[in-house]
């Protein structure tokens, strides 16, 4: 008989956090766990977390493949470095979680897909009013001087959501996700009973479900004009959409406990669509324009134009994941 394998000295599961193209808000979510972060640390080993801990890339590379229980990656993918890190963490982690809107859907950063890379560089390094760049110096991926070389990551043509670059197991929506959702997700992952791959770890009903203003929406709401929050004095108790302000709660997954309406602002859709919707913006657009209160083509056109930026409004967080601006070509299309 052979001896049973030695019990590892440190049986705590390993967890990694990483950020790609993001604002850092998702990192805040982890910090916003407050003292519960200590419970997390007690339960897991954090092996990589650039924003807080001094582990390096080579530390991760040194780990055996699949040795990390879960890697939480936030942010969209725009640079070669982000792509490399996504692949690295995918290789090292059993479970890869896309954390937040940018990783899930492309996020705010994904609106860059309305412009070309060249256009963005021109605008950022030459044309913006606060820029003085007479020599037209642009960032270089490789710069050599005196025998030394400095490199920068390359910038891809478009912004991608995480799953357009690597295989993703779970999604944690939100801009940023709430600490509660993160906490629940950690519990689910540690609990061992994993939900089906691809699950979005948030309720699958739309936000109205948990909005405290739900009851105040009239049954037959139609609108002659859409307003932006800055152009309206929003009553604190009444359904925001009923006040003419475009609120995307009806189209957006719940789970945030209606934080924005509770803060007297409309939902802008950061939790993305429910599982039954293929293109968030199209559905949100359909619902909002269906309740336009006119049958007259000219008046409809006028009302439609009270939404000054339809793509920015309906695809604020999901442009890279949209049907027309998506990169991921799914299986059905490949096997055409």
């Amino acid at each position, binding site marked *: 008989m052979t001896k049973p394998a030695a019990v590892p000295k440190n049986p705590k599961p390993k967890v990694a956090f990483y950020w790609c193209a993001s604002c850092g808000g998702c990192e805040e979510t982890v910090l916003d766990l407050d003292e519960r972060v200590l419970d997390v640390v007690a339960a897991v080993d954090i092996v990589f977390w650039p924003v807080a801990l001094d582990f390096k890339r080579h530390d991760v590379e040194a780990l055996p493949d699949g040795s990390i229980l879960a890697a939480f990656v936030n942010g969209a993918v725009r640079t070669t470095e982000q792509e490399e890190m996504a692949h690295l963490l995918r290789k090292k982690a059993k479970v890869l979680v896309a954390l937040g809107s940018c990783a899930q859907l492309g996020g705010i950063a994904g609106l860059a897909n309305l412009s070309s890379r060249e256009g963005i560089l021109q605008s950022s390094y030459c044309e913006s009013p606060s820029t003085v760049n007479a020599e037209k110096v642009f960032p270089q991926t490789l710069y050599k001087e005196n025998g030394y070389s400095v490199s920068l990551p390359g910038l891809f043509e478009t912004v991608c959501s995480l799953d357009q670059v690597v295989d993703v197991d779970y999604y944690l929506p939100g801009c940023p996700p709430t600490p509660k959702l993160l906490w629940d997700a950690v519990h689910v992952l540690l609990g061992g009973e994993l939900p089906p791959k691809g699950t979005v770890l948030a309720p699958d009903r739309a936000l109205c479900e948990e909005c405290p203003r739900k009851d105040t929406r009239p049954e037959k709401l139609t609108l002659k004009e859409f307003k932006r929050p800055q152009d309206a004095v929003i009553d604190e108790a009444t359904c925001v959409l009923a006040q003419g302000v475009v609120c995307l709660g009806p189209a957006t997954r719940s789970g945030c406990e209606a934080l924005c309406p509770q803060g007297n602002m409309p939902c802008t859709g950061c939790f993305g*669509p429910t599982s*039954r919707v293929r293109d968030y913006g199209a559905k949100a657009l359909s*619902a909002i324009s269906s309740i336009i209160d006119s049958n007259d083509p000219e008046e409809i056109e006028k009302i439609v134009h009270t939404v000054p930026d339809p793509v920015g409004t309906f695809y604020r967080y999901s442009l890279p994941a949209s049907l027309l601006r998506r990169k991921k070509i799914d299986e059905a299309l490949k096997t*055409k």
Partner: protein
Amino acid sequence: MDARNGDLRIGVYVCHCGTNIAATVDVKAVAEYAAALPGVVVSREYKYMCSDPGQELIRQDIVELKLNRIVVASCSPLLHEETFRGAVAKGGLNPFCFQMVNIREHDSWVHQDRQRATEKAIALVRAAIRRVALHKPLEKKRVPIHPDVLIVGGGIAGIHAALTLANAGKHVYLVEREPTIGGNMAKFDKTFPTLDCAACILTPKMTAVKKHPNITLWTLSEVTEVQGYVGNFEIAVTRKPRYINEDLCVGCLECIEACVYKQAKVPDEFNLGLGKRRPIYISFPQAVPQIPVIDPETCIDFKTGRCKKTCIEACGDRHAVDLKQQPKQETIKVGAIILATGYQTFDARKVPDYGYGVYPNVYTAPEVERLINASGPTGGEVILRDGRKPQSIGIIHCVGSRDENTNKWCSRVCCMYSLKLAHLLKERTGAEVYNFYIDMRAAGKAYEEFYHKLLEEGVHMIRGRVAEVTDWAVTPEEEGKLVMRAEDTLISFVRRVPVDMVVLSVGLVPHEDAKDVRRLFNISCSSEGWFLERHPKLAPVNTFTDGIFIAGACQAPKDIPDAVGQAGSAAAEAMVLIDTGYVEMEPNTAYILEEECSGCKTCIPLCPYSAITFLADKKIAHINEVLCKGCGTCVAACPSGSIKQNLFEDEEIFEEIRGVLANA
């Protein structure tokens, strides 16, 4: 079971439709292509899929090959979807595990390039195969049918349909907007080709309507609202005030004689303005109901409030005259509707060359009908507006018919009624009668014979369209006459025919408000404005709206025998519907996914049938399946994808989109 499931066993059937499809689409190639697609167990082509052997093929394959999905590529589903669903059901499969592909109307009949038509057929078949994989078994819901019938229009078609149904024991509401039923036929003197008197054959039927216990007759009434669906319509009727209480009036007509207007001064609508009537009047002696009507536009009491009200006096203790009568709303429930709203005649002013409205002695045919009618304004004597009796009369055919500038269609009745008028005018006046025609169209029982009879009577027939009618005389014989200038195309000679009277044989056109009626009842019109039948040959009285039938000239110009025939047919169709007792509803209704609905209420204002309500307890939306008509508008709008539509699920349509584009 769905596409990703290994159980899928699809049978594909591509129809040749004789050469209708096969001449333009390579059906063999389509069938072979389909055979190679995932899930397809058998793919066949067959001469006529809708034939018994074709249907049997499907049934047999379902049984023997254990098929669980069927695709038939043939004609429009509007023609044969039910046929094939039946065949699928015979094989023991749910009839909704079936998808039909339209490769005839949408492909072989509209394209010429065989290769591209075949490509299109392949794309459509591929889409159907991908779609049908997702089809779910569905059940048709049965809804009971209300046994009553609404008939709109009390002309000969409406009357005949009403009597047919009433005699069969059905309760009929006959709604007519004029003060009397009888329609256009009541204004005719004689009818072609038998020359029997219109009133003699019509008025007994009118009286029968009034007396029939199964008919509720509402004249001066209009349908103002139509709700519901086949078998269960809810109709609002507005009954305009007659100012005579129909229940109290005995029809003695003494009030008319007693009117303070001793002379009739108001142009009489029934006589097309050729005669005069009083403000209180009856349209014509045999009007049904036999009850006078007061015209508030001309009655002194309505205008000034200071009339002696001699009509009330005359009515005495019957108290039938009621000047305070108000419009009345009636709401009725019916299972079927027959529209028999008829036609109007072409406005002859639209052909200014013929001088109608300019020369007093240019008449329209309907006016002449009244002139020669014994109960008409002249007691049947043909007297011109200047008091003369015409010595010569010209009749112009096809005014507002067969004319690129007005209406392209043939009005079908004008040739015959022109001949009839020629005969009657000659008989009454002894005048020389000239008929100017383009072609003689006398297709009908005894019609051609009637034409020959007229030729023997010495009526002049001149083949040629009249260019103009003028009073500009160039010879002494033409002085004081109307001169008709036309090329006699049989002798290639331009003729000038001076006459005393010109009769314009105006064509039949849809009612001015036919479009409003159509919208009210939610049926379609042809581009000319005639009500559109479901199929020009095989469903000529059905419309695309189940439970609504059409009869008479509202569908297209037709003569009395055809109108009556169609009315009987519409009555029979309504009876079939009612006697079946129930109607099966297409199961394409929408439903809410209760676990998923967030209760956002976006869908609620979008439903025109108020089928969506908000459940106060669960705080989610609910769709009443009976009220839902399956348009799918709410499904497209639901922002969280929580409404589904049977037969038109998102996934099914997505598969169709991918299917048609798979080779894109």
